[in-house]
């Protein structure tokens, strides 16, 4: 089984566009959608409504910067502060071209920072490239539990 992609996005329109883009890139990975930072942490830390989920980290977290309750930077800080999640690939996906957001994201150890392109074709390409790189090409960090593709 392929490792899933965790998508953290609160805006329903962005969510719809991102899912359409992922669908277009024909990745086989499951996409798990959570709608705010608190829910993302619940998922990653297997707590709350995700207490019973199958253990293991996603291939990559696509994290929106601006979220209700706990924002993207706080989620990132939390991920980097815990031993189990420290090496998890996180891609910041945002509308913001503000340098302060970029700088703070890198300070907190983000793996990539992508400004959502305004033009839809570029948006699709960006999402598709991200999915293919992080979910297919990238070797996940050592020590994390690996999913194995079943022989079919």
């Amino acid at each position, binding site marked *: 089984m392929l490792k899933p992609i965790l998508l953290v996005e*609160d805006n*329903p*329109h*962005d969510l719809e566009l991102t899912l359409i883009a992922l669908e277009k890139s024909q990745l086989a990975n499951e996409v798990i959608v959570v709608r705010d930072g608190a829910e993302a942490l619940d998922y990653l830390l297997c707590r709350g409504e995700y207490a019973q989920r199958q253990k293991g980290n996603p291939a990559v977290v696509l994290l929106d910067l601006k979220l209700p*309750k*706990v924002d993207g930077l706080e989620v990132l800080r939390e991920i980097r502060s815990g031993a189990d999640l420290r090496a998890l690939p996180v891609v910041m996906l945002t509308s*913001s071209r*503000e340098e302060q957001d970029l700088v703070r994201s890198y300070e907190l150890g983000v793996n990539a920072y992508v400004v959502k392109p*305004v033009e839809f074709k570029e948006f699709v390409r960006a999402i598709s490239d991200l999915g293919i790189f992080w979910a297919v090409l990238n070797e996940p960090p050592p020590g994390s539990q690996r999913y194995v593709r079943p022989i079919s």
Partner: protein
Amino acid sequence: MTQASPTIDLSSCDREAIRTPGSIQPHGCVLALSPDGIVVQASDNLARYVGVAPEAALGRTLADVIGAAAAAELAPEFAGAGERPSFAATVRLAESGAFDVLVHRYDALLMLEFEAVQRTGVADFRHLYPLVGNFLQQVHDTDTVETMSARAADEIRAVTGFNRVLVYKFDAEGHGHVLAESNDGNLPSYLGQRFPASDIPRQARELYASNRIRLIRDANYTPSRLVPAENPLTGAPNDLSFAALRSVSPVHLQYMRNMGTLASMSVSLMVKGKLWGLISCHNAKPCHVTFDKRTACEQLGQILALRIESREVANELQFRLEVRRIMVSVLGGLTQGANFIENMGSVFPELLHFARAGGAAIIVDDRIVSYGDTPGEAQLRELIGWLQVNTHDDVYYTDRLSCEFPPAGAYRQSASGLLAMPISRIHKHYLLWFRPEFVYTIDWAGNPHQKEAPPGAPTQLSPRTSFASWRETVHGTSAQWHPGEIEMALEFRTALLGIALERAEQMAELAEELGRANKELEAFSYSVSHDLRAPLRHIVGFSDLLLETAGGGSPEKQQRFLTNIKESARLAGKLVDDLLSFSQMGRASLRPVQVDMNELVRSCIDKLSLDVGTRRVEWHVGDLPAVVADPTFIQLALYNLLSNALKFTGQKDPAVIRVEGRREAAVTVFTVADNGIGFNMDYVHKLFGVFQRLHRMEDFQGTGIGLANVRRIVERHGGAVTAHSAPGQGATFTFSIPHSS
């Protein structure tokens, strides 16, 4: 319209009944149906297009007049007809080929407009989406208004095929300034020129604001009158404000002929709810633009206006931020030593920079210290004497001093602009800034001062005949004072009064307040770049998807994409509005009076009753003590809290909302408590921040500015606001207002 007087009074243009001309342009015909579907009015060219004389059509059904097949094609579109024309269908009439039919309802009449078209099939609206997408792609956040306008002009010329497309902006006096032009070389260029305000009379501007697009196909047309002349249902002339074929003023047609343009189209640019400018298209020969293309142009105009709005808001915020930054540094410099005048001398360079001035002077009783380019000392004393007698506000400013105070003509080169501020309530203390004369040239499209017809001309009202460029040089004025500079000068004055009185504590508070205001401004410019980008991206994305699925795809999906586009456009607009209201909140001055809080709460609840609808809501309002506060602001704060309570009790039946108040030693405390979903106390620190929402957008609508407003209002009154929530017990908001603020 013939006048007895030999001098021509162009103000009579202001009285022309342009909404009720009683006739239409003859490139189509009109049928008006009564509510029971009977033809009650028709244009007198009906026979030419439909083969039935207008008198013969009256009293008959639509099917009788245009044939059963065409009538059946149109009938389903009537139910949805509103005040603005919508496209119903393209029908073939036996006599003369194909017509785009537009339908709208006005004064109980259903107006059908038949526009003759060359093509045979229905109008193709699909090219609207790539146009809009393409345009959005071409304009960037960093583009100037001129660049965006130029791109829009190119796009519109490509769509319509007009010879020349101008984008112009109205200035504060109503003169139009051509910012951008797209021109195929057949008509003269007007780029950079100005059109005097009198070219467009007042009521035409009003009509531009309500009907966003207007086409004149051929300026040499002979109007087709309506038969009968009056709307038979009201007995008054038909209001054709929204009719696409509306006939225009003969003066305007003459104006077009004088200008050498036989066809024109204009698209209104509305920014912040006002007519900001026009996209104006001209063609040397008659030219028709079909409804679908007009719709595309209108849409493009709306998007251009939206981009201009966000660009202008961003520029404005950037400017204020910069002025404030300089002011904070000046204040910092002033607090360094004890002697105010000496300190002032050390910050002169920043003071000039702050007001973009060429010179500055401080007057403390009889002592005058000046810096940079200023009038001489005797002239300054004379000016101060005049100011003392003639100005009484906290700040006085002008960009043409010699008009207000003629002796200043002697030094207009260094001081055509003056910003003057008394800095003591008792003594003759002034701070003055001077701006040099700014001699500039206006390129008018024709001499605006020679609008009257030459002697001996016919006495009929007539527009001007020459559009040849005419240059005028303007003397005696300086660059205009920006509202942000005036406001900042007022804040600066408050700060100076504080320093002059050596009230150190006050300074500390002021610095804190300034720090907070600066942070808020930063949050603004951040939000303009971040929050406004998202809806624009959604408009482009869903437009592209719509295009992709234009051939196939399910209608439900296309419908949803369209809804998403609409919602995103609305959200972008609301964001801009809320941002502006929030920024105004920080600047308007408070006018505290005794306020009856019981009455205020009652009126808020009344206002909210629409939102309540059929929900059960129990309001428990205690006996509330009165406070001294600004009633408008306090009402807004209360309204935000109550509407918040109402919003977050949406799932409760009944919703219970309690409002209580009590007087304490130094403050009066009010609470608004509800039994709604509450919030997690972990995030309480974010609750009052600008653009922070603790709930998902689709669950609870809002831009995240309401509670930020509440805090701002309460804090400006010197009070504090807190919030508390416990799981399952709703939320409680508490705010205090000091007895004397």
